[in-house]
Structure formats: structure tokens, C-alpha cells
């Protein structure tokens, strides 16, 4: 599930960067809004563990110690990926100016995607062993 969401999230970025020239158009606004909504949903899922439509007991069970540890590891790798992305953007900007808008987009995307993929990989491994 998480891998699918991460794949959808990342593929969405391909359309964003391939059609950057028309971002000021209504279609561009829709693209940006879709990215922003998906980013917020994914961040909330990562932060809370999801399962919003399940009972509190089931949510607590799903959010047990290993899940919390995997999520923590995901956030840590997301943080480092964001820092690394910021450094790379800073270096690239010396030669090729990058807008503030694009900078935010890239850093947020890299951070969320890395956190999700790390979390998903750890969860998959734990389930596979089970």
C-alpha cells in the first residue's frame, strides 16, 4: 500500500516537472493543488499511522512498537534526504537559478518519498519474516 502511494506520489512529480511551463494555467494550478493535498495526506498518514476509519483499539494495535520504530526510522531518513536535497539545490542554484517554489516542491517531495519508502521497506521486511 505504502509503496503504491509512494509510486503514485513520485510519478505525479514527473508530470509536474515535465509541464513546468504551464503551471500558471488552471491545469497547472490543479496539478499543484493535487500535489499539495497528496503531500499533506501522506504526511498525516506518516505522522499518525493512518487507519483513520478504524476503531481506536485497532489503531492502537496497528500502531504498536515496531510500527512506531519503523516510522521513526522513516522520519530520520526523510530528514537527511531533505537536508541533502537542500544542499544539492543550493549548489545547483549557483549555476542554474531555481525558484523558491521549485525548491520547496523538490525538498518536500524528496523528504516525504524517502520517509515513506523507508517505512514501507521496513514494514514489508517485518511482514515477510512473519
Amino acid at each position, binding site marked *: 500500500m505504502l509503496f503504491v502511494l509512494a509510486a503514485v506520489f513520485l510519478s505525479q512529480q514527473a508530470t509536474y516537472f515535465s509541464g513546468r511551463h504551464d503551471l500558471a494555467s488552471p491545469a497547472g494550478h490543479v496539478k499543484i493543488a493535487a500535489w499539495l493535498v497528496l503531500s499533506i495526506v501522506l504526511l498525516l498518514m506518516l505522522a499518525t499511522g493512518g487507519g483513520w476509519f478504524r476503531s481506536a483499539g485497532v489503531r492502537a494495535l496497528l500502531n*504498536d*512498537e515496531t510500527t512506531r520504530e519503523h516510522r521513526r526510522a522513516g522520519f530520520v531518513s526523510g530528514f537527511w534526504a531533505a537536508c541533502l536535497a537542500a544542499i544539492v539545490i543550493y549548489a545547483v542554484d549557483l549555476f542554474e537559478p531555481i525558484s523558491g517554489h521549485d525548491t520547496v516542491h523538490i525538498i518536500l517531495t524528496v523528504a516525504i518519498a524517502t520517509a515513506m519508502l523507508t517505512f514501507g521497506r521496513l514494514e514489508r521486511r517485518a511482514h515477510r519474516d512473519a
Partner: protein
Amino acid sequence: MPERLANGLKEKRTELGLTQAELAERVGVTRKTVNTVENGVFTPSALLAIKLARALSVPVEKLFWIER
């Protein structure tokens, strides 16, 4: 040589005839957690270690020990 927390969870659990799912239910965690603790993939918190020991009716130091 790094230290690691080893455990006799699998031995004790099978001795009592419990499945991972049954032990997980007793402790209030998922089977994934019991499995990863058994395999040494995940180091449990003191809270979970005590809960597991209590569920298996053994002192926690008999269930978990430090391995060098």
C-alpha cells in the same frame, strides 16, 4: 564487539504451545512485533519486554539477556 539483546522467546513460547499470534494477542501487539523480537530484528522496549515475560510467566531476565 557490539552488545545485543538476545532472547529465548521462541523456545519459551513453543514450550507453552503458543503461536506467535496467540502471544501477540496476550500482549496486545501485532504478530509482526512478536516475530521481529524473536528474530532479533527488533529490540523491544523495557515495557514490552516485561509484558512478554509476564505473558509467558517467566522473569524478564530469563527471557532476555545481553549477548556480546
